[in-house]
């Protein structure tokens, strides 16, 4: 197992995955069917409430980890279980090897356990002379191939039936057909005798229940209960984070875990093993049961005010299932042992900075994982926090440091952008795109036309265009964000037109600056705090009813993240920050909910318009439906396939990982083109940049604009 050490090295690995057609096909199909099937099984429960309850009891368990461990130990020992605790992975492996030796074990059968992957238990046991057989179908395939899991729930998702047929032909010495049903039965036939011959079974554990000392395993194949039942010895390897207080807690979690993992209402089997039972392999036989609790950094994480949230994880893998990056490159390229969003974080926490340095950068920040997580973990925030800590520990890079210097000094930053507007002229030929950039800058970015800096920034136009409104209904301020201020001022001009037509007074505080999101994505926490303070102050004295932003990414940063960045800030009180945050609103919500605009407020010209629901708009601000309603008021709305899937921009992400960005936007543009719409609108200038650039490159002739530009064309003056 290796983690990339440089971007160059990582880029090669990513290329490899992108050029694996089988992997791409399987993951793509899975992403779509998972989404559909998950929605179906979620319909019969109150998803939000259950997720909230899981977060609550898991938080409580993490806060009382020590107490629950003691309670579990006492209960389990009362029933004859041997309970151990390992501080490190190596210690856990040694303990289990020692148990096997003392119990006179030769053959070990295992059911799937990510924790045993974390400690790389098999290496140790095999080195110590034991015969170890994985019995989960996917894990067994991987063992035959000497590979590691690429998904927490479906470990062999990266392989095809043809590859499996080849492996099974080798192991059985009989030609096996690539028929999935038959291949499954090969495992049935081959592994039954291994269960029977096993001296010790090793399982993981989904929940370790303190009230009674029971462990549960959640499985479909039936191999875990074979492993728990057939051999005389049962050893469990379990992370301390799996401790929960009660049986009731598990019943709550079991309603979400399988739905989120594989879109099942529940798995075929859930075993509740509470101490050793009689073993009938010999007269008067008694099972011997050992439970090894693994720390490996967990007690430290439980005390970390930010990272402790990670223990809400129930290892459902939903964060992986919905990740647009995973969908392209798979789990082997998206984690060291644990993969997907949670994997990027756990790699840092359990396997160290060195392994996480490059991997943790591979999150596009689309919020999809946050939206589905069983424990409601703010995964994108924790990934940014990993980057923060890497920067704090001196592991930042030159790009981040430069951005920090430039972007925290508003005047310098804005003057640089004005300078760029002039300096780019030879390259733009008067268009909105940089057409003639020397190839050296273009290498991996040639999938989209890059935008030009606007001739005149919005802030430099404001004095001329600021509308006068007498007796306004509301007083609002605009938060521009860099992209609209300096690249697409026309989007803001359009919004001003709409607002003035609706009798809303608009202000534009000049001291506002970058929202800080790009800095946050680079782990530049201090720099984000600097710009955040600046922005909160810029709007503090205005006495505005609302602060409107047309950039969903800025909006989500201002509304969801500032309160964390500025918590306990010495210079700005909490009340000032929350007042600022409460006033932030996106344009669609303002027009729909506050102004209550109706179809009759617009002229509907029946233009065929489709929609791209920007990540931060649909998931962080949850406002995409408002935009859809507004589109229907002014045009013929045509829904787009995967409307809520990321466009692949992600700000600095597309700079760091252009090849992934390219793959995502290619699919997005294909879906847009298939709607046959004349125009696609969205609520984020970053997405406009990405989608317009790709549409221009492909010469598709579809108009790509901000929603504000569509609405401004159709608004009826009051």
């Amino acid at each position: 197992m290796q983690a990339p050490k440089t971007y160059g090295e990582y880029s090669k690995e990513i290329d490899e995955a992108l050029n694996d057609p089988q992997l791409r096909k399987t993951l793509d199909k899975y992403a779509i069917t998972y989404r559909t099937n998950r929605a179906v099984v979620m319909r019969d429960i109150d998803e939000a409430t259950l997720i909230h309850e899981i977060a609550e009891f898991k938080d409580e368990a993490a806060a009382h980890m020590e107490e629950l461990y003691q309670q579990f130990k006492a209960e389990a020992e009362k029933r004859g279980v041997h309970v151990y605790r390992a501080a490190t992975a190596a210690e856990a492996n040694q303990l289990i090897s020692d148990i096997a030796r003392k119990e006179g074990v030769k053959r070990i059968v295992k059911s799937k356990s990510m924790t045993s992957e974390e400690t790389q238990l098999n290496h140790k046991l095999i080195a110590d002379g034991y015969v170890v057989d994985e019995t989960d179908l996917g894990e067994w395939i991987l063992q035959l191939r000497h590979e590691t899991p690429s998904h927490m729930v479906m470990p062999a998702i990266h392989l095809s039936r043809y590859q499996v047929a080849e492996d099974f032909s080798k192991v059985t010495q009989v030609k096996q057909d690539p028929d999935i049903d038959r291949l499954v039965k090969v495992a049935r036939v081959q592994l039954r005798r291994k269960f029977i011959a096993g001296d010790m079974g090793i399982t993981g554990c989904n929940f370790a229940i303190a009230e009674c000392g029971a462990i549960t395993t959640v499985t479909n194949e039936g191999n875990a209960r074979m492993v728990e039942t057939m051999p005389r010895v049962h050893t469990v390897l379990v992370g301390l984070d799996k401790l929960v207080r009660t049986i009731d807690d598990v019943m709550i979690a079991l309603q979400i875990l399988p739905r989120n993992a594989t879109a099942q209402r529940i798995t075929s089997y859930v075993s509740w093993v509470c101490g050793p039972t009689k073993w009938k392999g010999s007269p008067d036989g008694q099972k011997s049961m050992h439970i090894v609790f693994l720390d490996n950094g967990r007690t430290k994480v439980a005390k970390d005010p930010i990272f402790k949230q990670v223990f809400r994880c129930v290892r459902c893998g939903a964060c992986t299932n919905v990740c647009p990056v995973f969908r392209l490159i798979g789990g082997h390229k998206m984690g060291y042992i644990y993969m997907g969003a949670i994997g990027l974080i756990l790699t840092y926490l359990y396997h160290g900075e060195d392994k996480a340095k490059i991997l943790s950068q591979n999150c596009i920040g689309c919020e999809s994982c946050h939206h589905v997580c069983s424990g409601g973990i703010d995964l994108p925030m924790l990934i940014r926090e990993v980057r923060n800590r890497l920067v704090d520990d001196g592991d930042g890079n030159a790009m981040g440091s430069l951005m920090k210097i430039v972007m925290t000094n508003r005047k310098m930053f804005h003057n640089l952008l004005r300078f760029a507007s002039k300096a780019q002229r030879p390259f733009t030929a008067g268009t909105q795109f940089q057409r003639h950039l020397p190839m050296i800058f273009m290498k991996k970015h040639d999938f989209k036309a890059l935008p030009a800096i606007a001739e005149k920034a919005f802030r430099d136009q404001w004095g001329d265009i600021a509308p006068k409104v007498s007796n306004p209904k509301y007083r609002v301020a605009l938060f521009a964000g860099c992209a609209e201020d300096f690249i697409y001022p026309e989007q803001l001009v359009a919004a001003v037109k709409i607002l003035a037509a609706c009798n809303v007074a608009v202000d534009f505080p000049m001291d506002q600056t970058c929202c800080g999101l790009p800095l946050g994505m680079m782990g530049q926490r201090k720099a984000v705090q600097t710009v955040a303070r600046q922005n909160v102050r810029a709007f503090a004295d205005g006495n505005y009813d609302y602060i409107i932003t047309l950039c969903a990414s800025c909006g989500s940063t201002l509304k969801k993240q500032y309160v964390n960045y500025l918590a306990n800030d010495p210079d700005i009180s909490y009340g000032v920050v929350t007042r600022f945050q409460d006033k932030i609103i996106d344009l669609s919500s303002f027009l729909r909910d506050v102004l209550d605009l109706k179809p009759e407020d617009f002229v509907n010209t029946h233009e065929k318009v489709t929609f791209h629901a920007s990540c931060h708009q649909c998931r962080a601000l949850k406002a995409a439906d408002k935009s859809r309603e507004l589109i229907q008021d002014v045009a013929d709305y045509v829904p787009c396939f995967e409307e809520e899937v990321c466009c692949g921009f992600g700000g600095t992400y597309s700079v760091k990982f252009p090849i992934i960005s390219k793959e995502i936007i290619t699919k997005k543009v294909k879906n847009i083109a298939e709607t046959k719409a004349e125009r696609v609108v969205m609520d984020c200038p970053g997405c406009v940049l990405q989608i317009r650039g790709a549409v221009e490159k492909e010469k598709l002739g579809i108009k790509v604009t901000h929603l504000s530009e569509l609405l401004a064309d159709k608004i009826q003056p009051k």
Partner: protein
Amino acid sequence: MSNINPELVEKFTAMAQAVAATVAEVPSKEDAFKYIVDLCLSKDPCELLADEPGTEKGPLGPNRVPTRVQRVLAAPSLNDEDFALLENLCQEKGILCLRDNVRKYAAGIDIGINEAVAGVAASGTCLCPTTDEDVRLAGMISEISIVILKKSDIYPDLPSVAGIMRDAIGNGPEGSFTTLITGPSRTADIECVGAVGVHGPLMMHVLLLEA
């Protein structure tokens, strides 16, 4: 009879069927046993998934392993009276009816019978006390797993059976093993394509008792 909730029965049935379980309503235990014996005789012969010295072998099954000539079913959880009733029916048809020693037949048996103490309507799940190894194995090594469940023992959802689970787990000091069973064993580990019958039963039948 009065505490049978038809809505829960209907929901349970639909949910169990949704995961490829067969659900049948049986008026009495005797009907249940007749159903089981008929099923045992009509199913394909059980494949022997491991060596079992001294056992009479029939022709190769679909997975190219020998089949068992003797039909075998296991019902270790039944009380004396019920077991005697079932055993009688089996003897008439030449079926071997096991009450213990199930481990000896780990290569595979035709049918294993479990009795659930609760059903969960929301997911078609059966809560089965399986502390006794024979009882547990009956539901694991059989080609068809049968669970008998009283209609009046069906509850709406998982939280509503937490107390029953607590009782099944017990307060010690003896160990216990309890299993939630929902449909036959399954996997989607190859190309995310669903397939049933991995290491456990190929099929599951739930017999809903009119009680």
